[in-house]
């Protein structure tokens, strides 16, 4: 019975992701003093991309890149609980799912690396090297924060971590372990592909990184992932640091707010060069993470 429910979760999350990313784009457009895309634009773009009549492939790995990427997102979503306390939307959460989640966060990028490298385009290759190195640096504080949280709650099960945070706002990890949350949120900025950490996809500096060669249904698949993956990642963050969500409205609200953090920073800053962002993670985020681990 879990499978249909998990698929329903997936369906809800994808649609929510599509609408929410459009909404956040609109909010960002407001800062630029304009209206921005229609809220349903993501759907149209996806249909359009699936509807393209031609597509070319650079081999199996090229094909699999977006598949990996998407399965990274799907996997991440499906192995952590979406709604706390709901049997239906607990997905395939299990005792060690935190480790799996950590793995899935990285999985998509790796898949992408393989696929994009297959395209043979130098921009892809440059984007990949940048992406992997920045990703590694950004994952470090997140991993440290996760350790800190795992140590704090003495469990590797996301469900249990959420359970431990119930009973009021002040029970959230945000307040019980602010250092870990700070480190994790820095990492979060780094992994959302928004300025100042989007040099991987920087159109001006190297267009446009890994997806350079992707198009039509490949791209549509990546768009699906782009709607799904941030939400999935935010679900992890929400569960670990912000007390999880008890219902869908709470879920939507929290995901939106956490997502807005990256937009809030991203809209107003330019981007770091890759070595600058790595340095930034090493100087600011990693010590915080270590401190969090040490202090727990």
């Amino acid at each position: 019975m879990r499978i249909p429910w998990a698929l329903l979760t997936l369906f809800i999350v994808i649609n929510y992701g599509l609408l929410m990313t459009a909404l956040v784009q609109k909010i960002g457009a407001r800062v630029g003093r304009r209206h921005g895309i229609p809220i349903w634009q993501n759907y149209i773009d996806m249909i359009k991309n699936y509807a393209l009549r031609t597509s070319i492939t650079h081999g199996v790995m090229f094909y699999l890149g977006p598949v990996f990427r998407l399965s990274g997102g799907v996997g991440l979503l499906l192995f952590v609980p979406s709604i706390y306390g709901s049997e239906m939307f607990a997905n395939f959460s299990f005792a060690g799912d935190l480790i799996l989640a950590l793995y899935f966060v990285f999985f998509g990028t790796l898949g992408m690396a393989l696929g994009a490298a297959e395209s043979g385009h130098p921009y892809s290759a440059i984007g990949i090297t940048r992406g992997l190195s920045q990703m590694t640096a950004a994952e470090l504080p997140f991993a440290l924060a996760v350790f800190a949280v795992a140590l704090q709650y003495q469990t590797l099960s996301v469900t249990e971590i959420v359970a431990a945070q119930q009973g009021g706002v002040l029970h959230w990890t945000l307040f019980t372990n602010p250092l870990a949350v700070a480190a994790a949120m820095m990492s979060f900025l780094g992994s959302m592909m928004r300025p100042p950490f989007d040099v991987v996809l920087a159109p001006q500096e190297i267009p446009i990184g890994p997806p350079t060669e992707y198009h039509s249904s490949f791209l549509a698949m990546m768009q699906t992932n782009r709607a799904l993956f941030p939400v999935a990642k935010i679900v992890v963050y929400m569960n670990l640091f912000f007390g999880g969500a008890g219902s869908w409205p709470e879920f939507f609200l929290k995901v939106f707010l956490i997502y807005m953090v990256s937009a809030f920073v991203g809209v107003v800053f330019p981007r770091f060069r890759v070595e600058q962002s790595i340095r930034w993670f090493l100087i600011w985020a990693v010590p915080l993470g270590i401190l969090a681990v040490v202090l727990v």
Partner: protein
Amino acid sequence: MFELDRSQYPQKKADGTLDIDLTSGKYLKLWQGPQHPGITGNMAIELTVCGDEVVDATTHVGYLHRGFEKLMERRTFMQCFPIVCRICVPEPDFNEYCYAAAVEELAGLEIPELAHWIRTLILEMGRVNSYLMYLGGQAGAFGQGVIGQWTTYVRDLMLDRFEELTGARIYHMFIIPGGVRDNLPDGFAGRMEETLREIESVLADVDRVMFHNAVFKKRAVGVGVIDTAWLDSYGITGPNARAAGVAKDVRKDQPYLVYPELEFEAVTGKDSDIYTRADVRRRDLLLSLDLIRQILSRLPKTGAVMTKLPNVLHWKIPRGETYVRGECSRGEYGYYLVTDGSGYPRRVNVRGPSYTHSIALFERMVINANISDVAALLVSLHTYPPEIER
């Protein structure tokens, strides 16, 4: 460990080719452009990179070549007037001014006082446009799109002023040999003042969001330094020179039009990096706003805007040659005009500042830069490809 290391500068052989083994696998050839968002306009850079570092760069231009200098040789002096502005798209007015001034000088025409003022006004308005475009581009090259949104918006407001004054948005075709096409429309000064205020308020925002921005500073300070020793060798003029502390400004050095009557000082900086160049341009932009105010408050209200022309259908100009220059937003803009007594120019040579900036200078300064900075470096030189190849 990430500091730039200029000792890696690769040596070149006598024939100009690199003295490195490109097949060694250590190097990668990379094309930026002509189809590339990090390129202003339509040009290309062929980069040889080693890791993230550029070891050699070749600019490829000519994608916008229309052969203006040749086309003008088969157009009469008046027929050249509509086509010169196309030489530089974002700031076309300098072409019109320099061409008109050169023709007037060789034909011995005196233009009315009011036309001088309106010409100066147009040139300053064009400068504002060009700088606004630059600011958006410079921030955009670092991935800060919002600045471009704001500046392009106020640039649109300025284009509205252009439209009501000249009758066109981009190619104004207004500074005609013999004067300007028309006087200011009614209530122009008031609407201009509103526009100037809007620009100023946006510039204040730009100042806060772009110039007082930790990440922007991180990217721009100390990057892309132009050595003062290069100034003469590479023919650097305009804000690029002023950011290096040399107050090169034709408006001051060899004043033309009504600049002698306006009060201003050339804007300079001293660090000569991307940040300083951007800052010099921002301050120059503010100066232009001030100059526009000065002009509007002082220009004569009535008077002729055009001198009496001979029949332009068969207008002949005696043999001669001259060079007329002006300070455009990117540096010295000049027209070298040779006439031979016929109804057609013998030769027109357009000296755009981008010509030297984006080829010789850029190729020199991009060496050892990070690939991520290449676009920003090019933008920071503020070059417009169409004026390179014409």
